[in-house]
């Protein structure tokens, strides 16, 4: 979480993007100058299935307010099946986090193809707004790491 000079809450959001579709979709959003909030920071992974739940929990622990994971659409995975595993893993993990009382809107999986620059930007815009509306993540934060 961060707060700017207007005392406005600006969420910290980590977006994991697979190299082949979603990262390329993010690049396309850039090519087309489709704006989305700067609160989104992208981490490139070869495939969405590279994203270990530990990374997501770590992000929350270190102060992220939302984590979104983007991959190729089901059926279009560069590695044929990676995103199918992602889908199950993240569905289970996010359900568990919600079971522990973490707001559902802080986590999301979205499929964005390399051609969907507009969808990427719109998704990020929407996610950032939803997370912002929730306010700072307190439930998963690691207070020790705060300055």
């Amino acid at each position, binding site marked *: 979480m961060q707060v700017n000079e207007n005392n406005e809450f600006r969420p910290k959001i980590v977006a994991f993007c697979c190299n082949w579709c979603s990262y390329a979709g993010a690049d396309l959003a850039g090519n087309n100058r489709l704006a989305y909030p700067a609160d989104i920071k992208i981490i490139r992974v070869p495939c969405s299935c590279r994203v270990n*739940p530990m990374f997501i929990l*770590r992000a929350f622990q270190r102060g992220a307010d939302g984590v979104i994971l983007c991959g190729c659409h089901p059926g279009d995975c560069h590695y044929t099946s990676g995103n199918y595993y992602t889908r199950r893993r993240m569905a*289970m993990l996010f359900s568990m986090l919600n079971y522990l009382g973490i707001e559902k809107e802080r986590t999301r999986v979205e499929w964005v193809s390399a051609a969907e620059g507009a969808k990427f930007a719109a998704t990020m815009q929407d996610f950032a707004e939803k997370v912002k509306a929730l306010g700072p993540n307190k439930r998963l*934060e690691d207070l020790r790491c705060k300055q």
Partner: protein
Amino acid sequence: MQTITRDILLEKAASLLASGTVNRVLGWKKGEFIYDVTPAVFTNAEDMYRHFTFDCFCGANFSKYLIKETQKEGKVLVFLKPCDSYSFNQLLTEHRFDREKVYAVGIPCDGMMDASTVKALAPEGLTGAERNGDALILHTLYDGDVTVSYADHLPDRCKHCKSKKVVAYDEMLGENGEVTDAGRFDEVAALEAMTEDERFAFWQNELSRCIRCNACRDVCPACTCEKCVFDNPGSGVENKAISDRFEEKLFHVIRAFHVAGRCTDCGECSRVCPQNIPLHLLNRKFIYDIDRNYGDYMAGAEEGSRAPLVNYQIADPEAGEVVSGAGGDKV
């Protein structure tokens, strides 16, 4: 139904030792107190006659011992209660031991008592306890014998027993039971029905008691890694003790995730937890979610089955569309 007694098991073990089928027996022996029966390895009948025990406190799962014993020479005899047999299969699926080195004897079970139950029933001066049919008789110093219903005081994992069927054995003693499903997701469903805030408060309360003793991990039949991620400096999550508020959640969530689809719901984690955290509710949540979204799956029910999290269907629901029972969300 034939009741399995210490004598029957002793006789079986002795004959297998005598015939050379096995050269060791994995069984139970008495501990300091009546209720802390622990697993033990016997190499001869004489030791067995002296120390081997079998009563209503033999709930411990042998899995970790089994892995260790099968790395030695010779063959080991193991007694498998229904829930143990699921772990047995799951370990086989994951190539954790050599089946050739085990002689498995299945034994029926209708629930094992655990320490915390009897301690709660007789907080002071407990000198002994025994089962007599449907009754649990507690011998105490001050109140004499206290008799309660056995079935009513079983720990949660036995009340909500998933199966009375031994699914793996070389030989079965007594009559095998059936797969049951005694409302074991009721507690999960009750939690799911709470609001996010209530759930958070519940888990905050439970998990903040965690002292990171690692007992849950060490007893867990699914936690059989050579080296746990939490002990591995390269994993990025290496951590020996609780250092902050979320740490314990991170540990338990990751542990539950690592065993998701592999957990046989044996309930050992909750049994051994010195802080009485209902850890099985995390594992059951995963089992429940998996059943509801990807079809019923019971780890260990079948040797060689593919765990749901290393499997997929093209028509799986999206992460946002899974049935997770989450109710009472903020609107």
